[in-house]
């Protein structure tokens, strides 16, 4: 991870053990006939099932920033949810993706999490209770590319429960019973944060040895948690100070604003 060379130290950080994803898996090449999404690439899968235009549109529109973009995504989601084959299409796309394709699989689960359909409950439950997959990257780092997917599925399931979707209550209990303890805990935390974690839920977790004594961290305790001690800027060895200390508005911004106000352009 780090070694000493002529007095130097290399700090190897963020090995592929963190959300380890195989480099080839997400970069699955497009087939020549595929058309890129106009708004965003979304998920483009090459040689296997990639979903119809409705699902592809959703996977792209989830990128749109800002309130208007968010609204557009929600509308697309509502429209897609009306389809009888929505979950089947989602499942087919998900199953076509290798486990290392964490980013792509996560996006698909995000769509499922917002469908508010009974059929989505089972899909989300299956993903939430699936086992971690520990993978070793080329430099020996150990990580789990499925954590994000399983976590998002569990949170999506909790959303379905909160929305009163049929079957979500039982499915959530199964997550508490069967999911990796960390995922079960995060699902319970989500439910707790919405004020819906019952004593019965806590009992299920307690029997598994999972503590559910949650409380929101606030006030001085939160401040202490988040306090970062100021560290001085590093003086570069050659003595040159090539960087400006940013105070308020950088000079270039001031110039740009002035120019714009004067009717100029940059």
């Amino acid at each position, binding site marked *: 991870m780090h070694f000493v060379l002529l007095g*130097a130290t290399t700090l190897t950080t963020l090995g592929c053990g963190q959300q380890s994803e195989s480099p080839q898996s*997400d*970069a699955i090449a497009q087939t020549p006939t595929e058309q890129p999404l106009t708004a*965003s690439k979304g998920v483009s899968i090459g040689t296997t099932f990639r979903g119809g235009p409705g699902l592809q549109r959703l996977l792209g529109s989830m990128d749109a920033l800002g309130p208007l973009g968010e609204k557009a995504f929600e509308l697309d989601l509502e429209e897609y949810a009306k389809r009888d084959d929505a979950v089947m299409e989602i499942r087919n796309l998900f199953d076509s993706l290798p486990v290392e394709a964490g980013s792509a699989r996560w996006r698909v689960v995000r769509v499922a999490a917002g469908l508010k359909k009974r059929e989505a409950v089972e899909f989300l439950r299956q993903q939430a209770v699936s086992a971690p997959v520990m993978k070793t990257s080329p430099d020996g780092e150990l990580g789990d590319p499925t*954590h994000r997917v399983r976590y998002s599925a569990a949170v999506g399931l909790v959303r379905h429960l909160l929305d009163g979707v049929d079957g979500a209550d039982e499915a959530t209990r199964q997550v508490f019973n069967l999911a990796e303890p960390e995922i079960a805990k995060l699902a319970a*935390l989500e439910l707790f944060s919405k004020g819906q974690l019952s004593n019965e839920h806590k009992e299920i977790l307690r029997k598994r040895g999972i503590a559910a004594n949650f409380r929101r961290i606030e006030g001085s305790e939160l401040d202490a948690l988040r306090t970062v001690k100021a560290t001085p800027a*590093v003086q570069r060895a050659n003595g040159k100070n090539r960087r400006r200390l940013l105070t308020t508005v950088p000079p270039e911004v001031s110039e740009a604003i002035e120019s714009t106000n004067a009717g100029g352009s940059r």
Partner: protein
Amino acid sequence: MKTRISIGLLFSSLLVFTSNTASAQVCRSSVDVSQFDDFYGALWGCQQWRINDMLSRFDMDKGDWDEGFGYENQCNDNLPLKRTFNALQVMAYATTNAPTCSQSSNNVGIWAYCWAGNSIDELDADCSEKSRATTSHGPFIDSRTALHAPFFYNETVVERAATIFHEARHASGHCQHVSSGTCLDGGSSCDPNWANGCVGFGSGSGLGANAFTVLYLHWFAISAQPSWTNSTVRASAVAGANYFLSRRFQTDPCFRLNSDGYAYATC
């Protein structure tokens, strides 16, 4: 400095970006999973004054970012340089329109950009696939932070911002991770605990680099300006933070984030 590695499946009709020289390398043959670069790229508009500031502030030299990494094509969202720019712009402006060097606020999103720029000696790039980023420092070497292929293509724009903040902590505090295999999940790149995670030869004290990652993602989740976020980006940030909290400490920090990004005690 850059290793010449040909990676991935090359389909001549599918190359989404090209290089200007025969010696240029391509880290990935295509970009098929959006990591929000299109929208963040459009948000800051690839304005020259911003580019000038980033190149200067992070000492991003042509020699380290040319030959396929994007220096000759600085507005191409498929190339490492632009993807790094997108992350730096998020770091600067996602939380505030007036980033500052003053660390008086607990909200790291307000000062992360300036502080990281002052902490990282220079920002380089290569196509290594073995980790997301590495930071080297020492009295006899050229201190630098190198960004690798997984940084450019396996992380969302916001996660890249968090990674740069993480690396800046290594660079400034000389914080190191502890021995391989000692993380809660048996993995590597761990810090011993939350409050005193900055350890190692010549290191400072206080929060370690992994805590910096969590803090950046947490503050982004709860305080990003509406035009710089959406529910999907926020969910990604929270998922990333919870991954670090559950996997990247020897001692459980005993808190996690809910989907809104708020911290809850869990022990």
